């Protein structure tokens, strides 16, 4: 009886034991944040029905917590209408967030994490309401897209008495190299994307990501979701060295153009024979580097997306940024990049949303209990 309650027999037993790909739903933090970017992911934003008060939101969180435990362990949640779609070992994770408007509801106004506000519209933004805002966020990731859509379907169905979806975004990422080892992964410009992130498990990471207040939010974080369209047609017209100059890193390895290995430090002072900065004044990696931003850091986890309409394809990045404080860490960086980033010529942000990501919970608890119980 190894396979949980559903699968008793008639499942082929693998010849060698495969490593467990179950990510525990429990912990001090919601588990997906520090885990590797999933191969497949879906984000769903929902708006609360007007009848969903604080108590009702608490009931939804209890339901979702039960669902999340079952789904991550590969079992159908209670009442699943397609239970065979729940399978274990897909590294399934679910992350839940609350948009700024949740903290305008009676009984919740005193608990808003500081700095949690929708971002002001940037000069280069072309935001569409269809990709923006939302009261609740569900982010589901897994190794396998069937598991992702099944989990999303259950969670959205169980939320029906409380909230209605307003947008959905599907993305993908490859953070496994050809030898099976973890790699940073690439966006659709072909760039290695994520190198400059604070490394998980370091004090720098903890200080960047985890909030220490208000009380209920200790161990939580905030998430910025930006849907950024990338113009591959005009990008492809550039020479390789023009492409590399826009960021200040090499396409081959992701190394700084002043270095040789991916994780070499950027040399922001290096100059060429003519005295010009090697990493240009407006290079993306310079402008966003913590040394140029009073030490401000963020933790980025992108997902590539494509969106097809008939024969027309739009490509882009679902840019995800985690930080303890949106207004204090993310917004100054964004403002700076909007003003001067070389990449702006090929990128356009068409969606924007901000969420508080409550801390994790343990076996005797449930999501955001300290806020909603």
């Amino acid at each position, binding site marked *: *009886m190894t396979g949980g*309650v*559903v*699968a*008793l*027999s*008639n499942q082929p037993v693998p010849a060698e034991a495969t490593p467990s790909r179950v990510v525990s739903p429990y912990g001090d933090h919601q588990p997906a944040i520090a885990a590797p970017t999933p191969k497949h992911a879906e984000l769903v934003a929902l708006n609360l029905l007007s009848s969903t008060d604080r108590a*009702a939101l*608490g*009931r*939804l969180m*209890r*339901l979702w917590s*039960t669902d999340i435990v*079952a789904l991550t362990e590969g*079992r*159908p*949640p*209670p*009442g699943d*209408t397609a*239970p*065979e779609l729940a399978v274990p070992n897909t590294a399934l994770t679910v992350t839940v967030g609350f948009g700024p408007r949740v903290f305008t509801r009676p009984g919740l106004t005193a608990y808003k994490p500081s700095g949690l506000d929708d971002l002001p519209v940037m000069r280069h933004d072309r935001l569409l309401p269809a990709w923006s805002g939302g009261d609740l966020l569900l982010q589901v990731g897994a190794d396998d897209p069937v598991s992702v859509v099944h989990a999303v379907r259950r969670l959205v*169905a*169980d939320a*029906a*008495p*409380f909230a209605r979806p307003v947008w959905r975004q599907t993305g993908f990422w490859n953070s496994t190299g050809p030898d099976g080892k973890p790699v940073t992964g690439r966006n659709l410009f072909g760039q290695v994307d994520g190198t400059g992130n604070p490394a998980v498990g370091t004090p720098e990471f903890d200080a960047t990501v985890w909030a220490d207040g208000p009380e209920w939010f200790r161990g939580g974080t905030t998430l910025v979701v930006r849907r950024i369209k990338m113009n591959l047609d005009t990008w492809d017209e550039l020479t390789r060295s023009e492409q590399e100059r826009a960021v200040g890193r090499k396409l081959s390895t992701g190394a700084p153009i002043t270095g040789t290995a991916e994780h070499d430090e950027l040399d922001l002072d290096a100059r060429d024979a003519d005295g010009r900065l090697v990493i240009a004044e407006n290079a993306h990696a310079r402008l966003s580097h913590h040394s140029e931003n009073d030490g401000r850091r963020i933790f980025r986890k992108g997902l590539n997306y494509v969106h097809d309409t008939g024969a027309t394809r739009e490509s882009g990045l679902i840019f995800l940024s985690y930080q303890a404080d949106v207004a204090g860490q993310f917004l100054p960086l964004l403002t700076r990049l909007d003003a001067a980033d070389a990449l702006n010529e090929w990128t356009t942000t068409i969606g924007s949303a901000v969420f508080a990501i409550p801390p994790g919970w343990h076996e005797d608890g449930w999501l955001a209990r300290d806020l909603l119980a």
Partner: protein
Amino acid sequence: MKTKLLMACAVVALPLLLSSCGSSDSAAAADTAPSVSTPSVLVEDAWVRTTTGAKDTTMTAAFMSLTNPGGSEIKLTSATSPVAGTVQLHEMAMKDGKMVMREKAGGIAVPAGSHAHLAPSGDHVMLMDLKQPLKPGDEVPLTLKFSDGSSHDLTVPVKKFTEEEEHYHPSQTPTPAS
């Protein structure tokens, strides 16, 4: 309850409905003395269907998975809940060409080393004479008693059921077993 017999649960291989429960269940209940180390039934993924939006808000049902890791059959023999005046164990049966629910004589068997799935369209714990509406996300205390003398106190979440209302709550009234 349901008028159609839908699949509703993953396990086909299990002898879910034991047609002849004639052999007395009290005999089984008395027969619990041996093997002290026999582990009791595991209860998982229990849930109760909401009364929100239901036609008849005085009754609903609880569903769950029961696993019996031991070497002899154990039966779910009764259940109680403070939210319900009456709690019965029900099965679905064909009557006049229709599926109807009725009380399950002898309780719900969990075969040795196997499972019983209480699911919509199959066996269930019927909560009747409800004392209050049950909203999605509410939690309902439920106590299950088994033939091995064990009992389980559960806190069961109330959920919306996505299958069509009419399959589940037809207009006819339940047919209690005689």
